């Protein structure tokens, strides 16, 4: 196991940030921690990167204990915190050199690992990190976290606040790193990114709700979901909320996802109900369950 977490608890005063967290990450796996702000993701990252003690429980990273062998762990992991750890008044090149030196290596020695990413920011290598755009900072921070060729890479919300294009590029980079044998633990509040991981843990309020592959996790959803659409989204949601057989309704893009309490649900009845409520251009069709549906059902 590359990362092993067993019964970890952590409280800050009255708030229990982590509640009996247990999971393993295999070597070379891309493992996602999926959950909103305040779920406990950052606390867990800080414990695994030896920056914070757990109240109890046990964890190892690259087979080193996070308490007893904390110094060894620091040599073998790369950590990209949510707020970038770059030195704003050093240039791109200076930042990279600084991190290489700290870890007793050189940029040349591990250049092949960061090459793909670094060439994208190389034209700006004399620019101060503080003057870079969000997307470029993200790439530089990733280079700095990789420069000592870590066995395990920790990425805490690397794509938060980043536009969809940069997010897509970032995940393509992660996939390439994975082929080089690096284990990656990544956290994100974006449910669509969950599908790109080998396995995911859904986490909320310090508890793991579910752990599985993205494909399996959606199978745990108990209901059949229907896409419903009319000419007025606001009225549609109001109508459905007043429908006695409603189990849940959530906006999903141009549709709402509707589920019914009954096992023998007939969409025609709902169609009729909506017609009686003066809705027009009604569409009702079955649709696939997404990870976001599953998360919301588990988090209810």
């Amino acid at each position: 196991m590359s990362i092993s977490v067993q019964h970890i608890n952590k409280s800050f005063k009255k708030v229990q940030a982590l509640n009996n967290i247990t999971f393993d990450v295999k070597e070379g796996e891309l493992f996602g921690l999926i959950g909103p702000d305040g779920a406990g993701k950052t606390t867990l990252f800080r414990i695994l990167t030896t920056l914070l003690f757990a109240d109890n429980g046990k964890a190892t990273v690259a087979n080193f204990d996070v308490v007893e062998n904390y110094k060894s762990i620091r040599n073998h992991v790369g950590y990209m915190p949510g707020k970038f750890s770059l030195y704003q008044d050093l240039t791109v090149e200076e930042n990279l050199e600084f991190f290489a030196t700290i870890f007793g290596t050189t940029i040349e020695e591990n250049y092949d690992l960061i090459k793909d990413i670094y060439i994208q920011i190389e034209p700006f290598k004399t620019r101060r990190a503080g003057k870079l755009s969000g997307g470029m900072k993200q790439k530089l921070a990733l280079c700095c976290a990789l420069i000592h060729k870590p066995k395990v890479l920790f990425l805490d919300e690397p794509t938060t606040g980043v536009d969809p294009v940069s997010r897509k590029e970032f995940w393509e980079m992660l996939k390439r790193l994975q082929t080089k044998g690096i284990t990656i633990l990544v956290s994100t509040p974006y449910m669509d990114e969950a599908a790109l991981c080998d396995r995911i843990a859904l986490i909320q309020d310090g508890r793991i709700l579910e752990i599985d592959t993205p494909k399996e996790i959606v199978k745990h959803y108990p209901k059949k979901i229907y896409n419903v659409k009319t000419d007025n989204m606001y009225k549609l949601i109001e109508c459905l909320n007043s429908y006695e057989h409603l189990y849940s309704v959530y906006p999903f893009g141009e549709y709402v996802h509707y589920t019914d309490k009954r096992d023998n649900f007939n969409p025609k009845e709902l169609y009729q109900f909506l017609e009686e409520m003066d809705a027009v251009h009604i569409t009702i069709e079955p649709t696939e369950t997404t990870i976001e549906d599953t998360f919301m059902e588990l988090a209810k």
Partner: protein
Amino acid sequence: MKSKNVIKVENLTKKFGDFIAVNAINFEVKTGEIFGFLGANGAGKTTAMKMLIGISTPTSGNAEVAGFDVFTNPEGIKKSIGYMSQKFALYDDLTVKENITFFGGIYGLSRKQIEEKRGLLVEELGLHDIINKLVGSLPLGWKQKISFSVALLHNPKIVFLDEPTGGVDPITRRQFWEMIYKTANNGTTVFVTTHYMDEAEYCDRVSIMVDGKIEALNTPTQLKEQFKASTMNDVFLKLARG
């Protein structure tokens, strides 16, 4: 009533030295519309928004917001709009009640009006248990809902939301959008930026900025047809990747 234009923008431009951050953009937003303002990081969204809310003077072009000119009457604009962003929202070391009172005062509401509004908000949002708690101690989802309500205290004609839902859980994000629908349904125009492409689908119309220009503007359905894409995410990727 979706006929009247509450925002009119003509060739609006902002330069910083040689750099053209916003390059002659044109669009109109109707009363009661939910208008999505999208673009990649660095495309010029924030700069454009700052001009529209009256805190940055354009280099050239024209714009009228809530009936006020951005050059000659930015103060008029500020009084007629609400603004909420993830970064600047509420004061963490004031209670919910104190925040409402403070912002009500800033917007020029009388003490009686503030009290009435506060009563309404407590009922609508179910704030009974948290009204005297420090905002800093509340979960992000609560902060965002309260912050949105505070931006609406003075019944503005338009509310500007700058990435209002970043980081919150999917249920809270949807509850927030239900608040947006309700607001628009009551006739307040909603101007919103987001990085969640499923949220782009909730907008009546969406504009997409690329390198300082508006490269596309239409309803989500028509944009998907135009770019032969099945989702707004695909539309965005096609446009922003050139």
